[in-house]
C-alpha cells in the first residue's frame, strides 16, 4: 500500500507501523474516569467494513503519527493527516 504522507507525499506503507482505530486519541483521564469507561476505550472497536480512521506511525520515515482514513474493504485511502493536528483539533493538549 501507499500512504500519501501530508508532508512527504506518497510513501510505501512498509515504512509505517500500524496501531489501529483513531478513537484511541480520546484517552480518558485515569484519575477521573471509571474502569468501565477505560475498558470501553481500551478494548471495544467499531471495526467498520468501510471507512476507517486509523493511526499509523512513520517509523522508518519522519516519525510522524498519522491519522489515515482508509476503506477496509477496498483499501482505498481518502485522507491522511498528522495525528498531532487531529488530536489538537479534537481537544487534546497536555
Amino acid at each position: 500500500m501507499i500512504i500519501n504522507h501530508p508532508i512527504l507525499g506518497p510513501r510505501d506503507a512498509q515504512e509505517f507501523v500500524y496501531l489501529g482505530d483513531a478513537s484511541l486519541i480520546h484517552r480518558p483521564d485515569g484519575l477521573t474516569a471509571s474502569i468501565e469507561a477505560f475498558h470501553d476505550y481500551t478494548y471495544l472497536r467499531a471495526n467498520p467494513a468501510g471507512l476507517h480512521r486509523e493511526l499509523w506511525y512513520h517509523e522508518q520515515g519522519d516519525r510522524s503519527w498519522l491519522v489515515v482514513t482508509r476503506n477496509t474493504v477496498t483499501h482505498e485511502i481518502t485522507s491522511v493527516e498528522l495525528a498531532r493536528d487531529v488530536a489538537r483539533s479534537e481537544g487534546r493538549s497536555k
Partner: protein
Amino acid sequence: MRDVNLKPITALGLDLPQVVTLGRWTLTERTDVALASLAVRRGRLADVQALASAAGLPLPPAAMSEQGAVYAAFWVTPEMWFVEAPFASHEDIRRHLLAAFGEAASITEQTDAWVRFDLVGPGLAQVLERLSNFDLAAAPSGTATRTVLEHLGCYLIKRSETLVSLYGPRSSAQSLHHAWVVAAQSVL
C-alpha cells in the same frame, strides 16, 4: 586530567575509513563529520530560525538538505533537523550548538549513533533500486529522506546526481556495507 588518550576506530572496526571501488562506483566511510539533532522547543520556532541564521546554520524545508559555510543540515521531522559539521573543529558539536541556541532548542549529539557512507559515481539509482524503495532517479538534488535498507532505518541524502550520503545505524555498518557491495556487483 588523567593521562588517558582513547584512540577511535571506525564503524567498520578499522583505524582508518574504508574506501571500496566497484566498477564506476566508490563507497567511502566518512568519519570526519560531526552530527547532532536540533529540535525546536515548543513555540520557539521563530527564535530558532533567527539564531540559526545568526549562526550560519541552514534549516532546510521538509525532506531537503542544505549546505552552509560550516554547518550543513537535513530535515528529519517537523521542527527537527540533523546538523552536520566538520569533526575536526566540531567534535563536541552539541557544545557549539548549545552556545548558539541555548534553551530555544533541544540538542543531542548523534555523531556516533550513525555510520555515514558516501556513494559516488554515475547512475547510483541502479544500485539503490536493489536496496531501497526510494525513487532516487526522480528525486531532485538536495533531497534527504529516511527509508529502509536491509531492514534498517537509514537516511539517504542526494547531494548531487553522482553523490549520495547514506546514514545508517552504526552498529550495523558491516551489514550495510556488505549489502551495498553485493548490490553493486549484481549490477556490474
